[in-house]
């Protein structure tokens, strides 16, 4: 599905990401872990097209996407969330979900002005999809509230729902559990597994919560100071000496 080979990203003299490779297969949950400042989010930014990588190749569904503009990559079916929640906070919850379905809608100006049948049909469909996902993440009651007024955990869930209404094939989550209480983290855990099982979505995950990462990941990539340190199943990573020294800490 997604193949990253020898990805490098240089900011001036700083080599933030150095020769990182990773693979995400269909219906797989792959995690990236590593100490703060290791370059995890930079990898994300390169894959999602926010940065133009200095070197390496990124292939999505068999096509090279490195250097493509971000909005095109997301239209191909790979969307992301952000480390700090980025909602359209002065728009309502439903509107947030409608904006995300832009490419499913009839965006022809005249079709919208005179409300052609096709326009209405697509608009209705997108509302149904929004309703479905609101129900799914338990935000139905909040549908017409301003997104900025939601509690933090709800905002996190809305952000994931907003990605899901675009019907992606790969979902990239940047520290989705940050700031959540243990209860919410457990719910998130279930949600991510269900995305994979029920909606056939592959997930690329950055996370510091080890119980979450170890519990749901099919494979884990460890990055340290921009360089790949290890890659393997949760069991292999847990017992890898380098990883323990650099990140997990010795017991």
């Amino acid at each position, binding site marked *: 599905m997604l193949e990253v080979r020898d990805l490098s990203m240089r900011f001036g003299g700083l080599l933030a990401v150095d020769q990182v490779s990773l693979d995400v297969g269909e219906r797989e949950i792959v995690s990236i872990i590593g100490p703060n400042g290791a370059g995890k989010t930079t990898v994300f930014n390169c894959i*999602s097209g*926010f940065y133009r990588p200095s070197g390496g190749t990124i292939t999505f569904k068999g096509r090279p996407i490195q250097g493509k*503009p*971000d*909005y*095109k990559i*997301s*239209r191909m079916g790979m*969307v*992301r969330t*952000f480390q700090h929640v*980025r*909602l*359209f*906070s*002065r*728009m*309502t919850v*439903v*509107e947030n979900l*409608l*904006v*995300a379905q*832009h*490419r499913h*809608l*009839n*965006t022809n*100006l005249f079709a*919208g*002005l005179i409300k052609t049948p096709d326009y209405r049909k697509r608009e209705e469909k997108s*509302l*149904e999809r*929004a*309703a*479905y996902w*609101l*129900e799914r993440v338990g935000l*139905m009651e909040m*549908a*017409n509230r*301003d997104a900025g007024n939601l509690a933090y955990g709800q905002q996190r869930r809305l952000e994931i729902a*907003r*990605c899901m209404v*675009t019907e992606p094939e790969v979902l990239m989550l940047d520290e989705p559990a940050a700031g959540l209480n243990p209860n919410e983290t457990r719910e998130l855990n279930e949600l991510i597994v269900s995305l994979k099982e029920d909606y056939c979505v592959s997930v690329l995950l950055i996370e510091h919560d080890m119980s979450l990462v170890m519990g749901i990941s099919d494979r884990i990539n460890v990055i340290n100071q921009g360089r790949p340190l290890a890659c393997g199943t949760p069991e292999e990573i847990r017992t890898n000496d380098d990883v323990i020294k650099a990140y997990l800490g010795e017991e």
Partner: protein
Amino acid sequence: MVAQNFRHALFCAFITLIISYPILGLNLEARGVSITLTGAETQTYVGIALAVVIVFLFQLFRPAIMETLGQVKAINPMINREPMPQEKRVKFERFALILIVLGAMFWPFIASRGAVDLATLVLIYIILGLGLNVVVGLAGLLDLGYVAFYAVGAYTFGLLFQYYGFSFWMSLPIGALLAATFGFVLGFPVLRLRGDYLAIVTLGFGEIIRILLNNLTDLTNGPDGIGGIPDPTLFGMEFGRRVKIEGNTSFHEVFNIPYDSAHKVIFLYLITLILAVFTLLVIRRLIRMPVGRSWEALREDEIAARSLGLSRTAVKLSAFTIGAFFAGFAGTIFASKQGFISPESFVFLESAIVLAIVVLGGMGSQLGVILAAIAVTILPELAREFSEYRMLVFGAAMVLMMVWRPQGLLPMTRVHINLKKQEAGVTDHA
């Protein structure tokens, strides 16, 4: 504490004195060729002294005064009122808009000629305000050169008439489309810009257009402007005493009624009203369409919008183009109303006024923009006696608004979207 208060009060009084005395108490008078400095009349001095004493006393007893004022606020019945719920506000806004449009339809038949003429100007500002609202209020792109598109619309009509004899109705769509093209072209260089930088570039663009109009003397007649621009016609009927353009008939002759100069004013007013309502309805639809939502999304968070597949280029250009389109509309009407245009009508102050209308109205709120356009255009007319202090009053009103109601007269109402499942859920509970 008391000593500190006293010192502070003394200081404030002193500042009042050194500000007001040179401005009010000293006059320059020209006597022949020489200019002499003379003192003002005694009552001015008394006034200054009184002002100083008032400032001194107010500052001295400020804590006590503020406390009393605080109690006054507490008995204000409005303070604890709950804000209107969202659904109610949407209904209220629609109701108010219909009421305003209905009122505007009957206005020319009850008001004087001057009042109708002023109302036409108000409508032009409403169109401008609604158009700029798309760019600034919805898309969040601070445009300080909006008047340029207004000028493009006006000059398109002026020039097409002068060189090719085009009528109002032919020029109206051309003017609007040309202005839209200019908006589109300006959009390109500013795609990457935001906030302050964008404001500066658009400001420069506005000035470029004005200076071009001023200096392309061969084409635009420079500062002398273009005159004799015709009024709109009704199916080939003119509203003047005599027919100016061959082939046209005149309104009063066709209907066999005595000539009345008010007919022309009323007709222009009604056309402007129709165009304003058209603008209102089109933009109202646009806001609820995918393109309107993407404007807002871009304003709220550009990075998130892009990550969801919105193209920054398409969204920004559409906002600029549509905003400019309506400015071109307003410009054509303006040219027709004045009959004469010159670059002087399109100075930065005009941009500032339209921007003030959008900000005062509450960014994004259509009803707010309409109310603000009415207030901003009519207040200076009502305050003619204070004409010297007009800008001072205007500025003070802006500052006070920003301090007390930064969200504008009427903040934008969000559309309430009913989801089928939710409705079902609600009935279950009931």
